[in-house]
C-alpha cells in the first residue's frame, strides 16, 4: 500500500535536495512509529528532533508530500506541528505561510476584525 506510492514517487523524479529532504523526514516515520508505538513521550521527542532543522515554511511541502503518499500518521503529525507553530501568529503571517491572499471586499475585512478584536490580543510580532 504505502510502499507502492513511495516507489512511484521516487520513479517520478530524480534525486534532488527537495526529495531528499522529504525522504529523510517522512519516510522513516512508519518504522519508527512501529518501534515506539506504545510510548507517546518518546515519539514526541523523536518528532521534535526530526523537525528541529526544518523551517516552518518547509512544513507545507512536507504536508503535501504526506498527503500525496496518503500517510495519515505523518499528516497528523505535521498538522499538529503547524498548528503549534501558527497558534500565536498574526493573520498576515498565516497568509504568507499558506500562500493565501485576502479576497475580502474593502472594509469587509476591517468590519470582521473589529467584531472579534479580542482575538487579536497577545499575537506574536511578525
Amino acid at each position, binding site marked *: 500500500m504505502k510502499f507502492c506510492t513511495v516507489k512511484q514517487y521516487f520513479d517520478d523524479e530524480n534525486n534532488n535536495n527537495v526529495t531528499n529532504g522529504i525522504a529523510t523526514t517522512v519516510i522513516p516515520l512508519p518504522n519508527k512509529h512501529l518501534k515506539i508505538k506504545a510510548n507517546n513521550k518518546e515519539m514526541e521527542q523523536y518528532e521534535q528532533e526530526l523537525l528541529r532543522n526544518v523551517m516552518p515554511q518547509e512544513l507545507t511541502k512536507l504536508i503535501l508530500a504526506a498527503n500525496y503518499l496518503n500517510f495519515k500518521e505523518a499528516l497528523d503529525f505535521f*498538522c499538529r506541528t503547524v498548528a503549534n507553530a501558527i497558534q500565536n501568529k498574526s*493573520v498576515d503571517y498565516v497568509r504568507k505561510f499558506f500562500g493565501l491572499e485576502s479576497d475580502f471586499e474593502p472594509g469587509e475585512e476591517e468590519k470582521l476584525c473589529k467584531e472579534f478584536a479580542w482575538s487579536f490580543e497577545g499575537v506574536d510580532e511578525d
Partner: protein
Amino acid sequence: MQETVEQRSLPPFLRRRNTNVPIDIALNILARLPVKPVMRFRCVCKSWDSSITNPNFISTHLNNNNNTNKDDDDDDRGYLFHMPNVITRTMYSSSSSSNPVCTVVCDRTFNRISEHPIPSDLLINFAEIVGSFNGLLCLAEYGNGATYDEVIYLWNPSIRKFKRLPRTWLSQYDWDATGFAYHSERDDYKVVKIYSPSSNRIKRPEVEAEVYSLSSDSWTRVGISLRPNVVVSKVKDYSSASFVNGALHWLVSVSEGEVEVRNRKIILSFDVDDDKFGEIALPGGHGLKRLRSERFKENLAVFKGKLAFITFGNREIVYFRDSVGSCQCVIWVMEEYGVCESWNKLFSVRLGEVESFFGCTRFGELLVQKAFKFKYGGSDVLRLNNCVIVSLDPETLHEKDLGVQLPNIATTFEESLVILDQADGLSG
C-alpha cells in the same frame, strides 16, 4: 508559462504553480487550534471565514478538543461558575476592573481561575446558570414580576457570543424550574421550563412544561403524563435539572388521586430524545413528607456519571458563645439507571454544618458552602465573611477551601465554537 529552474527540480505534485495546502488540510490544522486563533484566522480569507463558521467545522473542532482532553489529569476543563448579580456589578464598576466577569475555576486542583467578560448587551441581573454543555452556558433570570424581566440566554463565553431565547410564558402560571440538555445524536440543545399554577382559578395544582430546541428555535408545550391519577403538584423553586443518561431530572412533589394528603416526592425525568416525561422513585422511605423538626436538604446531582440523591440533615446545638453545627450527609447513587432496586447508599458521613450544595465534580467531590464557626480568643483565623466554599471528598473526608466567591453551579466547561453559526445576539 515558463517553468523556473527551481520548479523543474520539484516532484510533479509540487510543480503546480499553486503549491498551496488544500482547504481540507488547512481545516485539519485549524481544528487543532484554541478558539482565539481560530476566530482571528477568520480574517485570512473568505473561504476560511465561511469554513470556520460552518456547523461541520464547529463539530470537528469540538470533537478534537474532547478527544485531547479525555484522559488528561491536568485538563483545562473548569468546574465552577460564578455569575455576578446586579449588586456585585455595582461593586465591580467602582473598582479598577470595571466590567463584570463570569468566573470559571479550572482543573482538578481548583487552582487556576479564568475569567470571561460578560457582553454588555447581555442584560441579566440575577442569573441562574442552568447548565453547561460543550462550552455553551444556559443562563436564566426568573424575574420578580416587577423590575426584572424573565429571560433565558445561551452564551458561549469563549467566542463571546450569546443568543436570547424567544420569550414565552403561560398565563396564570409561574415559571419555577428549568433544565438544559444536549442531544448528541442530533447535535441539538434543549431548554425545558417548568411552571406552577399561580392562580386559584386553576382547580388542581398541576405543573406544566415547555421545551425549546435550538435547531427549530421555538418553544413547544409538552404535557406531563405519568401514571393515571398522578400529577406533579410542585417543583423545587428555581431548581436546575441534573442531566444524566440522556434525560433531565428534577425533585418534585406529586399528588395521587383526589386525596391531597398523599403528597409524595419523586424524581421527574424528561427524555430529550422522545421529549417525554417519566418518573423515578426516590430511594428508601424518602418519598414521604419529612417532619419539620430537622432542617433537611435534599438534592439531585450527577455523581461520577450516575444519578445521585444527596441529603443533608442539619442538627444545630447551641452552646454559650460557640455555635457548633454538624450534619449527616447521605449519598445515594442509582447504579443502574431507571432501576429503583439499584439505589445504593454509597456514603453516610458526618460533616460540619452545610449551608448549600452546588453539585459534584466529575471525580466525585462535593462542592458545598459551609458555615464557618469562629472562636473568641482562639488560634483560629477570624474570617470576615461567615461562609466558606469547599470541595469535599466523601471517601477521605478531605476538604479543600476553594477560596472562591459564592458559586452558582458546579459543572464542566471547555472552550468551543458552539453557536458561532447562529444569528447574532438578540432573538425573539
